[in-house]
Every structure is written in structure tokens, then in C-alpha cells.
């Protein structure tokens, strides 16, 4: 008796679980697509200035929310610089935005033809 009563109950539970699972999965999908929108990429062009070495690849797509300081660290790593060497990035070749500036803001202010052009220079520490 009790068994037959329980069976449909558990069926109901399972199906409701199943539909909830579906819902949460589709929510996950929605969330993923939202995240993809958030993870907008911005094209940047890195050009050397002064005595900075050239980079084989100049064009990069960077996460729009990254701060400029992140690109500085990236360039330092890419060029395999010594710890006492510093890298600075410039917009318009004349102004170094502070490292906490977000790439998207810089793109909004200084983009040319859909790209953010950043000039990089390398210096020794002040010595």
C-alpha cells in the first residue's frame, strides 16, 4: 500500500527535480552568455618608442575590464625585462595614464579606428 503511494510521489519529486535542474541549467547558460558579454575584448596595438625592443606581435585583444597595470606587467614578461627595468605605456605618445585605469575607459577616450594604440617605452630605474 504504502509502496504504491510512495512511488508516484517520488516520481513527482524526480520530475520536479529534473525541471528545476533544467531551469538552473538554462540559467547557467544565460549567465555564461552574460559573462561573455561582460568579457568584452578590446583591440590594442603596442608600438615601441625610444629604445624599447620591438614585439613580434603588436596587436592584442585584451579583456576590457583589465587595468592598464596588467598590460604593463604583460609587456615586462613578454620582453623578459630585468626587475630593475620599468615599462611605461602612453596614449597619444605623450601621456602615461595611471596604472589603475581600466582599458575600456582608455579605449573610450583615445581609440583610433577601433583600436587603442599604446606606445611603450623601457627605462632603467632612475640611477
Amino acid at each position: 500500500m504504502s509502496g504504491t503511494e510512495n512511488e508516484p510521489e517520488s516520481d513527482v519529486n524526480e520530475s520536479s527535480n529534473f525541471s528545476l535542474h533544467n531551469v538552473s541549467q538554462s540559467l547557467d547558460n544565460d549567465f555564461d552568455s552574460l559573462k561573455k558579454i561582460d568579457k568584452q575584448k578590446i583591440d590594442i596595438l603596442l608600438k615601441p618608442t625610444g629604445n624599447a625592443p620591438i614585439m613580434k606581435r603588436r596587436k592584442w585583444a585584451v579583456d576590457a575590464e583589465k587595468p592598464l597595470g596588467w598590460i604593463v606587467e604583460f609587456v615586462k614578461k613578454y620582453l623578459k625585462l630585468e626587475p630593475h627595468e620599468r615599462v611605461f605605456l602612453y596614449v597619444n605618445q605623450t601621456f602615461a595614464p595611471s596604472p589603475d585605469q581600466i582599458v575600456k575607459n582608455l579605449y573610450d577616450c583615445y581609440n583610433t579606428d577601433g583600436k587603442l594604440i599604446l606606445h611603450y617605452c623601457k627605462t632603467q630605474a632612475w640611477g
Partner: protein
Amino acid sequence: MDSMHLSMSWDTFLKDIKEMKAHSDSIDDDWLLNQGRNHEYGAYLSKKLVNCFSTSLSTDTPEKSDSLITFDYHVVYNPSYGCPVLCFNAWEMNGSLLTIEQCWKQFNLANFDYKYHTLTQMEHPVLMKPFITLHPCKTTELVQLFANSKNVVVSWLSTVGPVVGLNISSHYAKLTN
């Protein structure tokens, strides 16, 4: 490399800091234009900034505590080097000045040998008092990169300021272009 002719003239420096001061006023930034008395190269910019630091600077123990530190940044012309110089003094809430060791620690220089020729205590060119100074040796080399800039002081300051915790608002970018 002959860097002598690349040095910045006093007239250029004066024009640039006056422009910077005017722009600072228009965006309510807090730069002040000061005039040293009886001094040929007496004009300089200064700005006070209060920063909160979560690491304790006053002791050697890694114990963490919040402290408010006031930075008094100065942009001065150094006639010997023929270039602008960024220097500052900083003090805690109780008025005690930060030592050079504390500044090295604050700006992540403490573990490197090059700290001795990056940030040192030098005489302020106008006030003749000791200030923690970003060493000017390489400044003329840096400044020559800004041949296209309409305001070399702003270009230079935007470059070196963040090294000692002074971020320059992107509003100033338009002075350079």
C-alpha cells in the same frame, strides 16, 4: 649621447607648470603654484594627498594596522640637472616623518639594490630642506621621448608619479596633445 642640449629650459618648465596649475583649478584638483623668495628658479608646484595604508610602516613586525599618511608632493626645477624633479615628504597622523627606509618599503623598492639611486633624500632645490626625491639622473633621457608633447612636465609627471603613489588624472592628457 649628448644629453645637454636635451635638457629642459627654465622657461619651458615655467610655462608647463602654469598650464598645469590652470588646468588643475578648472577640474578642482589641488595643485598649488608656489613662489620661492629671492630665488631665480623659485616657482614650483605642490600638492598634498592623504593616503590610507593597511600595512604598518612604523614597525618592523608584519603586524597590520591602518594608518593615514599625508604626502606633500613637489614638482621643482633642478637647474643643475636641467630638468623637473619630483620630490615629497610624508608624515603619519602623529606628525612623524616617514624615513627613507619606510618609503622604500611603501613603494616596493626595499628588496632591490637600485633603491639607492631611485629614491633618496636630497635637498629641495628651492626650499633647501631634505626631501625624498626621485633621482633626476635619467630624467633628461626620459624627457626626450616627449618631443611631440605640448606639455613635457605633464608627460613626465604622468610617467614617474605612479612610481611614488602620485596618479595624475587623465584629464591632464589634453594638455600634452
